[in-house]
């Protein structure tokens, strides 16, 4: 048995030279000046390059990639509450999301459903998320047994006051409406939970 450990590197792609392996400098390289000018040429190319990474963000058109950042699928932004087909809030006030929340930012008060809601007995009287405490982990979405709460891709979440960042039930439902995501078959779960329809994959 040998104690020496021989590390085997996978073969490098063609044309790739390890920087550490290239220890032999020609005398021209040792002069540094030609290499410095090579580097200056490189930065000059970027200096005059009209294609910048920066987006001219104006926050008005969140669908236009030239004016706004478009997050990848599954991005966890602002929350919203979904509605059922009757237009009621889908939530059944089971407190699963509040229990799962590691930041303890979800506050729910339950109430018995009105007589004409035939499908369930409980609904939230109060449903508040303190977005200043929220860490956007998405655990509430994972925990929800009826797929009522979800995280949208809305990332431009600013306000003038702290109070405005505590979203109540109506606001959370409005968030979904504004996104056009309020209907129950829209969601961002692809984990095969019953009732979940895998949403279509992204196009970018």
């Amino acid at each position, binding site marked *: 048995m040998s104690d020496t450990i021989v590390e085997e590197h996978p073969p490098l792609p063609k044309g790739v030279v390890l920087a550490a392996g290239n220890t032999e400098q020609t005398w021209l390289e040792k002069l540094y*000046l030609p290499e*410095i000018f090579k*580097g*200056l040429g*490189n*930065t*000059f190319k*970027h*200096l*005059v*390059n009209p*294609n*910048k*990474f*920066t987006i*001219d963000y104006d926050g008005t058109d969140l669908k236009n990639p030239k004016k706004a950042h478009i997050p990848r699928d599954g991005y966890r932004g602002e929350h919203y509450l979904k509605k059922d087909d009757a237009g009621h809030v889908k939530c059944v006030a089971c407190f699963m999301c509040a229990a799962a929340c590691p930041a303890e930012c979800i506050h729910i008060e339950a109430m018995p459903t009105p007589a004409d809601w035939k499908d369930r007995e409980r609904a939230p009287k109060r449903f508040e998320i303190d977005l200043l405490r929220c860490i956007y982990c998405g655990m509430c979405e994972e925990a929800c047994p009826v797929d009522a709460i979800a995280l949208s891709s809305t990332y431009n979440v600013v306000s003038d006051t702290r109070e405005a960042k505590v979203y109540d039930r109506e606001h959370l439902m409005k968030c979904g409406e504004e996104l056009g995501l309020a209907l129950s078959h829209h969601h961002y779960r692809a984990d095969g939970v019953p009732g979940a329809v895998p949403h279509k994959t992204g196009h970018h």
Partner: protein
Amino acid sequence: MYTLAVDVTYTPAEYLWKLLPLLMAFGGVLGVVPLLVYLERKICAFIQDRVGPNRVALLGPDGLLPVLIGVGGKAPRLLAGLIQPLADAVKLFTKEDFMPVGADKFLFTVAPFFAMLPPLLAWLVIPIGAPATLPGMDHPMPLVAANLDVGVLWVLAVASLSAYGVALGGWASNNKFGLLGGVRATAQMISYEVALLIVIASLIMHYSEPGYNGLSLVDMVRQQAYVPGTEMARNAPWGWGIFHQPLAFVLFVICAFAENNRLPFDMPECEAELVGGYHTEYSSMKFGMFFQGEYIAMLSMGALTATFFLGGWHYPGFGWVSHWNANVAALLSLVAFGLKVLGFVVFEIWVRWTLPRLRYDQLMGMGWKILIPVALLNLVLTAVLSV
């Protein structure tokens, strides 16, 4: 023997006109500094494929006037980004002027002056334009604030003063990072000043032709702009120092970077290791003065490079224009000189965003083991060739 300027009698008008180059040099330098900060940020951004400051405008949504007096908020952005230096200045003036516990109050306050004033004083002896015959004068006056016979010595004297700024700033702020930065700055500036001095010595030898004072910056430019021995203005740039002392030019530029504490030689600041180096503890306008001092030093070094090597205020075609109208030629020479200085500064910014920082021992090794021997070689070569 060179005649001193004291025996020249001036008319009152001439005394007044003497103020003109002074005001132009100081006003120009201090006015350009905020623009350089903007330029640095812009060039940096472009090199990194970003767009840089483009929000703070005169009019428009983030405009200065809408914020101050409430008009023009709906207008399209005007001078977007160019108002940034103004916003920076307001910020610097209104920030808390903080002094750390245990700081040496006197030195802490004095250090920023040492950083800002010496590079500015170098402009006193730098000729910024071709001689012009101004109203009320009967002979052309060189556009220089003080036509010193020993201009080069003056420049070197005030340049080494600026090492005090960083050293004192680092020492007085009672902070280990500040002190380390100050010590590094002192060591670096002194080391590179040796090579710089030897380079300048060979320049003095080169420019000390019969009838010319090699120590006077005005005479240096005279030799580059006029055919030596005659008062015939040159058209071609073949008199420029860079064509006679190419090696000295390369050495001088390298040393100039080190003297300015700019990358790849920005040891004294060295954000990654020393927070901010000598100005770690500085805030408000005291920091602003260090900051300004750095840019003024860049401009001064640019002016010296232009004067020593790039023909000073001389420009191709100067002969023809000055034959036609000397004052127009002088006006153009101001522009030419400004462009040369600005070109050097832009080059310095460009290099900053290209090269990484040298290690401290590599820096000192390069200064003492490479630059000084090569500078000495250049000195010997100059001595032999100009016999």
